[in-house]
């Protein structure tokens, strides 16, 4: 059974520290709800695990079994069995979805999959996700609706069969029916023993996929690690108890304000 172990992870972007000592372990077969207010480092953690070039790791380690992930490029991390379902998947003009999916499937096979077998696989997976097949023949995510993009992420999860999947707000943009479809696929994948680390702001998805654990990230650290009761409590009462019971002050998300605003005074301000 594979284990992803994150120890004292510090990471920054543009010189600003976002992760300030994250400790978290997730094993295959577990489903962990990753909770926390906006701007406290949840998505950053996912990006750092996958090796996004924008983020700099300044301290700590991430091991996948006995492999030091921080030494590997992004594609190698994926091939080891990690998957990141993105909050805002890139739109890549001209790259045909099916070509991309085939390249991704082939990246983890010694012999390339035959076109016939690939289309059989794709046909089955798109039907399961109730996706129109023509999405496969269009440019990757270009002109896809929010829901279609998210289903396309889950489609990749199915085709790539990772050991541990990181899902970043995979439910945003989904209507009730689509959420059920996505949850059904996740449940099926859970039964096959995959591990999930799931960010969502809504209890609905968690109710459908029944996490085994819930962790809360505040100020760039994991401050609560408990059972499913944690997300139920947060859903009902918010994050206030973190402050009252644990004595942790929740830093407000910084709003980058322009130094000047539009208008005649702003011009003067800019001249200064």
């Amino acid at each position, binding site marked *: 059974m594979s284990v992803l172990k994150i120890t004292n992870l510090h990471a920054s972007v543009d010189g600003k520290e976002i992760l300030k000592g994250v400790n978290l372990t997730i094993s295959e077969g577990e489903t962990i709800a990753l909770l926390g207010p906006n701007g406290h480092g949840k998505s950053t953690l996912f990006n750092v695990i996958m090796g996004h070039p*924008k983020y700099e790791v300044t301290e700590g380690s991430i091991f996948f079994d006995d492999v030091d992930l921080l030494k590997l490029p992004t*594609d190698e991390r994926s091939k080891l069995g990690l998957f990141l379902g993105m909050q805002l998947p890139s739109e890549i003009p001209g790259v045909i979805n099916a070509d*991309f999916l085939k390249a991704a499937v082939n990246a983890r096979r010694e012999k390339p999959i035959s076109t016939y077998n690939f289309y059989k696989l794709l046909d089955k997976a798109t039907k399961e996700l109730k996706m129109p097949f023509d999405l496969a023949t269009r440019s990757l995510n270009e002109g896809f609706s929010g829901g279609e993009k998210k289903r396309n992420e889950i489609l990749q999860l199915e085709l790539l069969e990772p050991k541990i999947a990181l899902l970043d707000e995979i439910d945003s943009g989904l209507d009730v029916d689509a959420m059920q479809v996505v949850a059904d696929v996740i449940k099926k994948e859970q039964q096959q023993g995959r591990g999930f680390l799931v960010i969502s702001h809504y209890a609905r998805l968690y109710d459908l996929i029944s996490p085994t654990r819930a962790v809360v990230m505040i100020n760039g650290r994991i401050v609560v690690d408990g059972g499913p009761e944690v997300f139920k409590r947060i859903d009902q009462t918010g994050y206030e108890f973190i402050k009252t019971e644990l004595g942790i002050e929740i830093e407000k998300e910084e709003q980058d304000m322009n130094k000047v605003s539009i208008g005649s005074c702003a011009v003067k301000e800019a001249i200064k």
Partner: protein
Amino acid sequence: MEELVVKTDNLILKTGEYRLDNSSVVLNTLNIKIEVNSNCYILLDNLSNIKELNIDILEGSQVKLSMMFDKELNDIKININVYKYSSLEGYIADFSINKLDLNCLVNLKEEGATCYFKLASLSANKDDKNISISVNHLTSKTYGKVDNYGVCKDLGKLLFAGTSFIVNGAVKSKTEQNAKIMVFDEASNAIAKPILKIDENDIEASHAAVVGKINDEHLFYLTSRGISVAEAKELITFGYLKPILVGFNDEKTKEYISSLIERRM
């Protein structure tokens, strides 16, 4: 598709599909006249011997002119006149090597004349390419659009120029120019400068130019699925140049161009 052997420098074509290559042309200037009310597909398959190509598209005709180059070309001049209610669709898949000066001028001479031009060009291995596709709107109700896509790498130089000119009196005309170049390395040199010259008020015109490197987010997205950086770049580039394939009717040429892109990248 009819293979054409040109013995005269004046060719008159009616409705049909035609293919010309170096073996079929002995002269380096070629004049083609498309007769009235014709519907033609003309494939210039690596016609690298030619220096000057003049085409007249007479009234009421539709012409799809597709060019593919993968050899050394040097200079080539293309002049196309489009007459009343005729339309030209032009496609150039340029994978020529070394130095290239390609100058294409489309004159929309009479009312209702339209032109759509699409070009995909690769400049690699110190290639030095100047490509200019210009459209003159010489009378009212003419429509022109030019889309240039380029990839520049390994010390390649690529310049997209071209002027869309609307003369005084060419009312209700519409013109559009787009030039996009993706640059792979700092040592390559890419310039996109689509120019609009407008002498009439009652028209629509727009132009866009983009020169940039591969988007880091796109690269991260693809590599996060296990695709190597090299293959991801290839997919993105392929996606940039591949849309030119719609300009070619026969599968053989399409496959050849696809394989060219793969090989050259």
